């Protein structure tokens, strides 16, 4: 509740700072924001695209948040997403199955790919106390170069060396019903998968013994050990779930928003996931909302750029400023407390000073 207010204030400050930036560079903030939000929400197609842009961010945000709730810092969502997406694409290109079955196989492949990429840092952490920040970052580059080699070698596209073959219709999360509903947008089933992931995340963290164990290990490893919780197993399991979530983000991106996988790119959603989790205060619903907001900014900035002279970097700057404010939540908390106290002091003379009761 309180963190929700802090996030909202961070967003507000970010937007205000963006307005100042626009004004300073000689543009109208009102026009800028009008086009930015119109770009994301003007018609069904744009709304669909906003939702689709947000989908991988929901997954990577959940991935980072899940790890964080259990005391781990997963910087490797990018690599997990890339490798999960790669395994899913490989499955989609290799098997000839009916669409529902093939999609199921691809989703499982995506989860396994992401989990595989995260389980290695998990084991290193549990057994040898290797810090996961270092090992997950290095795994990012292993994923990058693995895909860089494997795609041209096994799944080369028809025209370009730098991307895989297009996925057949049976292997994509896009379905005509959704595409038509949103006026030709690239929105796809990934969104539903993401909503399910949000619900499962909330359920695991809040209602299960597994979530209880994982959180206990994250909050106080020694107390968890004392209570007989298998600490090392929890760390590995937590990384598997976090990695799997990021891997699903890869499925949504490469088999939903796009129809193939490109080499030489570490998906930016991996790192944006950290910001999404931070702004969402590491809660499942918070992650969902903040991912949607980021999706809106990302999909609207092109329209703003086209309609005004405002450079798209402004949108990126707004996002960066919001992240700073979200990270500096203590400052915002102090500000809120200061404001509350000032108001309380102001009304002290009034009749509502019930605190004075003995």
């Amino acid at each position, binding site marked *: 509740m309180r963190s929700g207010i802090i996030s909202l204030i961070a967003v507000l400050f970010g937007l205000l700072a963006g307005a100042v930036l626009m004004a300073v560079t000689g543009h109208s903030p009102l026009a800028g924001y009008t086009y930015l939000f119109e770009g994301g929400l003007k018609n069904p197609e744009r709304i669909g695209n906003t939702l689709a842009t947000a989908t991988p961010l929901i997954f990577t945000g959940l991935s980072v948040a899940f790890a964080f709730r259990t005391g781990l810092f997963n910087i490797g969502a990018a690599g997990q997403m890339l490798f999960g997406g790669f395994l899913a694409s490989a499955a989609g290109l290799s098997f000839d199955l009916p669409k529902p079955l093939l999609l199921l196989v691809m989703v499982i492949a995506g989860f396994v790919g992401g989990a595989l990429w995260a389980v290695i840092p998990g084991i290193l952490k549990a057994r040898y106390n290797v810090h996961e920040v270092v090992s997950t970052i290095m795994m990012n580059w292993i994923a990058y170069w693995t895909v860089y080699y494997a795609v041209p070698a096994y799944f080369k596209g028809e025209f370009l060396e730098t991307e895989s073959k297009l996925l057949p219709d049976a292997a994509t999360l896009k379905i005509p019903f959704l595409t038509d509903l949103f006026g030709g947008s690239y929105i796809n089933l990934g969104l539903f998968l993401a909503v399910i992931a949000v619900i499962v995340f909330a359920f695991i963290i809040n*209602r*299960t*013994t*597994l979530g*209880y*164990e994982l*959180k*206990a290990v994250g*909050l*106080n490893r*020694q*107390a*968890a*050990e*004392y*209570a*007989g*919780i*298998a600490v090392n197993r929890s760390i590995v399991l937590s990384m598997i779930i976090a990695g799997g979530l990021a891997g699903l983000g890869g499925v949504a991106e490469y088999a939903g928003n796009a129809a193939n996988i490109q080499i030489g790119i570490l998906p930016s959603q991996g790192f944006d996931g950290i910001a999404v989790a931070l702004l969402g205060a590491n809660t499942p619903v918070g992650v969902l909302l903040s991912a949607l907001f980021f999706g809106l900014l990302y999909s609207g900035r092109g329209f703003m750029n086209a309609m005004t002279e405002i450079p798209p970097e402004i949108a990126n700057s707004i996002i960066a400023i919001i992240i700073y404010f979200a990270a500096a939540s203590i400052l915002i908390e102090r500000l809120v407390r200061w404001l509350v106290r000032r108001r309380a002091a102001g009304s002290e003379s009034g009749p509502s000073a019930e*605190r004075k009761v003995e």
Partner: protein
Amino acid sequence: MDYAVEMLGIRKEFPGIVANDDITLCLKRGEVHALLGENGAGKSTLMGILFGMYQADRGLVKVNGKEVRIGNPNVATKLGIGMVHQHFKLVSTFTVTENIILGSETRKGFVLDVKTASRRIEELSQRYGLNVDPYAKIEDISVGMQQRVEILKMLYRDAEVLILDEPTAVLTPQEILDLGVIMRNLIQEGKSIILITHKLKEIKANAHRCTVIRRGRTIGTVDVAATSELAMAEMMVGRQVTFKVDKKPAVPGAVVLEVDSLSVKNNKKCLALSDFSLQVRAGEIVGIAGVDGNGQSELVEAIAGLRKPESGTVRLKGEEITAMSVRGRIQRGIGHIPEDRQKRGLVLDYSIAENMVLEVYHREPHSRRGILNKLAIKQYAERIIASFDVRSGQGAASIVRSLSGGNQQKAIIGREIELNPDLLIAVQPTRGLDVGSIEYIHKRLIEQRDKGKAVLLISLELDEILNLSDRIAVVNQGERVGIVEASETDENEIGMLMAGVKAEGGEGA
């Protein structure tokens, strides 16, 4: 009257709890003034207000007769108020001098001038009889010495009023006596001291006056010389208390715990416990006496499964458990009140309810097929809260971090006794608790014994060991130097053994 500090009508509220309600405390110049109260009575809050960590909702603070507003600890320092916290705030790889000048470094141009500072520290140290080497590293000196460094830190900053928060909790009996001498020296030089404690003996020995608070209210300020320990205890608790523990003779049954020639290494990879053997029977309390750091922690951790022994065996009710998992041991009937409640015993950011099921969350009715039953957990926790009088702002939903230390401890003890273990390991079960709580916890431990459970008690308080135990094993440098019947021994004999003088003809375990 010449008062150094006056706190008048202080009130402080936290969400759901009134910590201080119209408390008045007046410290005369040149006196040792004890602040006595149960855990959660509001002592820490009151001192926090004086030291600028909290702001009072109402009331006045005067220093040297002038009204002041202490917004943060820096203001307190400027006003000549210094505090030695229960947990020292020292950098262990720095020298004594470096620690003392940290934050107010003396300089020669751009260069740190350690020499001048060291000289001044040596001077202060001599004047007050502290006997501290300014060039020693913190990690190389004893806990008692570290405490003196904390005192020096305040003197270096010209503190006139010294607040000592539970200063004897970490000291050996000899160090406690030394501290008394130091306090007298400080008084002679015109300093004033507020001594927070709930050890009545120490108040009697060191303090001139004593202010007693209970549940956030001042009960009264008394002249220590004219008031008996019992009278002060009654003021604090609000009812009659007994110091002597009532207990029937033990009726030992079958062997529950059998430790056989156990050797355990510590974190520094040195042998902390060597060839240690001990038996604890059903229906008896076996105490382990020893100066802190003589292998007690390692012994407990090896029995609880938190540390792998190098050699030797541990048996529970005849079954070997030397290599068993922690959970396996808990399920077979080991309860463990750990030494460090915040580090090991509790997940501070979990609620009381969540902490109460830390070992049993996976069993019915607390969960079924991996799904938690929050209602059952809440009811379980409420039962423990009620029967162990754990006080908190919001009942079972309170975050444990917000509880006072004593209530945290009561919660842990309640949790472990609720497990109904065949073997209860109690490490420093009453550390930092007040007379009322100590009395209560001692009763519960003896109750466990009388129910036919085995209790292994590890404590640094000799009184506690002597009062509760049926048999006493003494450790020195990781070895069992003696084992004696509690009824046939006294403080002197145990003290000798603790110091490493071997007992003659000590009977086998």
